[in-house]
């Protein structure tokens, strides 16, 4: 089992979710986050005072999958979020030790999805 974390541009969320659904990957947790990388943000102007915030808005996806779905998931996120510009985001793939479905108490691969 793997735990996949994708950090993407907020405006790409709909496209990524659509591609995940097409691959029958339904389990996903989405959060609004702020962070920074190499991308430079847009300065905001308040009464002529420029605020060059160093933290940019991103969307974070968290998806737990069985091994067979890892590449499909990575591809769905990449295809949906890629624009070729700096700031498209990152995908992290982590080993997942355990997964428990609270309703039934099922464990492991059966509990995912």
């Amino acid at each position, binding site marked *: 089992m793997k735990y996949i974390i994708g950090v993407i541009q907020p405006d790409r969320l709909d496209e990524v979710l659509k591609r995940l659904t097409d691959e029958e990957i339904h389990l996903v947790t989405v959060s609004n986050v702020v962070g920074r990388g190499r991308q430079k943000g847009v300065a905001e102007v308040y009464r*002529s*005072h420029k605020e060059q915030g160093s933290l940019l808005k991103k969307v974070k996806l968290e998806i737990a999958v069985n091994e067979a779905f890892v590449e499909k998931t990575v591809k769905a996120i990449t295809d949906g979020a890629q624009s070729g510009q700096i700031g498209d985001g990152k995908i992290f793939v982590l080993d997942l030790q355990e997964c428990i479905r609270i309703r039934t108490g099922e464990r492991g691969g059966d509990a995912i999805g």
Partner: protein
Amino acid sequence: MMEMTNESVVRRDTTRMAKLLVGGLVIVLGVTGSTLAAEGVPSTAVASAQAKVDTGDTAWVLVSAALVMLMTPGLAFFYGGLVRRKNMLSVLMQCLMILCLISLQWVALGYSLSFAPGNAFIGGLKWLFLHGVGLEPNADYAATIPHEVFMMFQMMFAVITPALIIGAFAERMKFSALCVFMLLWATFVYDPVAHWVWGVGGFLRQWGALDFAGGTVVHINAGMTALAAALVLGRRQGYPDGMSPPHNLPFAVLGAALLWFGWFGFNAGSALGANGLAGSAFTVTHIAAAAAGVTWALLDWLKHKKPTTLGMITGVVAGLVSITPASGFVTPMGAIWIGLGAGAIPWVAVTYIKGALGYDDTLDAFGVHGIGGIWGAIATGLFATKSVNPAGADGLLYGNPLLFWIQIKTVFITVVWSLVLGFVLLKIVDVFMGLRVSEHEERVGLDLTLHREAAYTVID
């Protein structure tokens, strides 16, 4: 340990405030009791009042007083939206507590010091605790509405004026010090200036200075003390580069809209009757606000490539500020020019002068109300015309340089008065109780450290 220290500071502050309040209450009750016992209430007042009171005029001024009251909560949201999340409640609390405190101050002595018969500089003590302020009209101020209604209308002005100053020291002033300072400021700065300009015998009124709805009394007065406050309290930690943006601009827009709405009561209500002059003031008020909103947005568009929402509403407020002294004396065309100036001059102050001088006038109380108020008072000397209001005067553009000169002198006197006296009062309060919260409190935010509350929950 930190927590313990905070608690004890809060407790010490609270105890001191409680003592002050109890002391004040004892004095209040003692004085009212003795005056009532000594003179009693004239029993014929009510009967004769009903003969002279005009119901239309009274209805309009009552509604206007309520409109002006709404401006203080409106200002609270205008200012509150512009601060950081952690200080939202502190701003709302400051504005609403000023509404409570100054209302009582006005009843106890503010109204008398401002409007009771006195000398050229200050009103007398005859109307302390509203003694003799009844339902019978006072012909010196408003011959067709109950005296008490005039007093209430004026009370709302006395309330919003100190609340405007908050903008200069938002996010860093101690609440206890604020309460004491505002009571002192209302008594020693606002009430005298209100008397000079509007009170019978007031010297600026004698000179013929024109201030229809409070450009001098309210806006220059508050704006200059705001500058003093920004200088005395100093910058916030991290200013100017480490500050977060306004936490809720929609609140600021809502607040500006409430101010705009309330300002019809402020200016048109200052006609003190439901008449043509009220209609004229209503019209020019709206026109100036619109012209200034467009101007500020355009200047932002030119300089920063985008028209900003905050810029537009700031322009609207600056326009309302600037038309205030002129609202009973100028034509719609005059209002457009005043609005254009109100969009441009405070914009320059906020864009260039504020940065160059480096003071932290957090929400631009000086930039908008001080500068806008000065422009409005001077513009009244330019654009006023007797064709709008025969009781007024002609301005420079209508061939009367004297009025222009009187307006300049009035501005100068008020600027010096509220800057210097505001500075001195702040220093006095600083010596006795300290003006500024601790560094820790400033970092954590005033909502939690001064009020033990949070404006927003993170989890439902």
